[in-house]
């Protein structure tokens, strides 16, 4: 089973990366960019076919390792 965990910064948390990329896109002349925030995706291959179990495992993975829940949110999708 394929799954994706997307980890993004909570709103209000400073995103130095996003800020720098935003500046670069503007100076490259890409039109209309108002703001950029960067996050991570983890494409995870899960064994077995039990969707519920996979979701539980992914939640555990996100909480324990993939996201720092002090400053980040995460979203799980089993594809």
């Amino acid at each position, binding site marked *: 089973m394929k799954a994706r965990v997307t980890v993004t910064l909570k709103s209000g948390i400073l995103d*130095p*990366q996003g800020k*720098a*990329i935003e500046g*670069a896109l503007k100076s*490259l002349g890409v039109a209309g960019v108002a703001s950029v925030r960067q996050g991570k995706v983890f494409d995870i291959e899960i064994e077995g076919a039990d969707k519920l179990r996979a979701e539980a495992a992914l939640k555990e993975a996100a909480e324990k390792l993939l996201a720092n829940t002090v400053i980040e949110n995460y979203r799980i999708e089993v594809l």
Partner: protein
Amino acid sequence: MKSAVAVFPGINRERDMARTLKLISGTEPAMIWHAETALPAGTDLVVIPGGFSYGDYLRCGAIAARSPIMDAVRAHAARGGLVLGVCNGFQILCESGLLPGVLMRNKALKFICKDVYLRVERSDTPFTRGYNAGQVVRVPVAHGEGNYVADEETVKRLEGEGRVLYRYAGPDGSLDPAWNINGAVNSIAGILSERGNVLGMMPHPENHVDASIGSTDGRGLFAGLADHFKRVA
């Protein structure tokens, strides 16, 4: 040797590089701000130093590679001018298309600062003429993303054309994964462009030019370049 050091926001080894260029060539390099569109007239060597241009955000070197000054650097290289990129400079050269491949995160996923041994693969280039082929030199590395990766085809070409100039090795020149500090393919530490005038390397020869600070093994690279331009002149 008239050299120019490109300075991007977040670059932080430009002073180390300028000091070394002055020490060895006797001439102070010009410091060129990233927003400039031209190099000083008569520039022999362009150096892109180490550091964290744009914080290394997005990908190392990615944002700097798209600065105005890089067009001038590309034009300089197209004319056959020499370009040296060290550490972040190597990453910028790869991102700007002047060198093939990319530098990924170190195998151990940690920043690493320590002295390493490099085997100099050939001595018949302006960037290595200060050394003998097969010579082993000790210089420091200081990077988090120096793991050189390229597709198989590219690596084959680099090797076939003798464009790998520096490799991580043991003190005796032996190649063993244990000495490959960041996991680079074929222990590659530095590569040359197709035309032989652009070198990118991860280690910092500019930090080992003073015996009282540790070692003088890095001198050869700069002394070789100075010698090259003396001959050309």
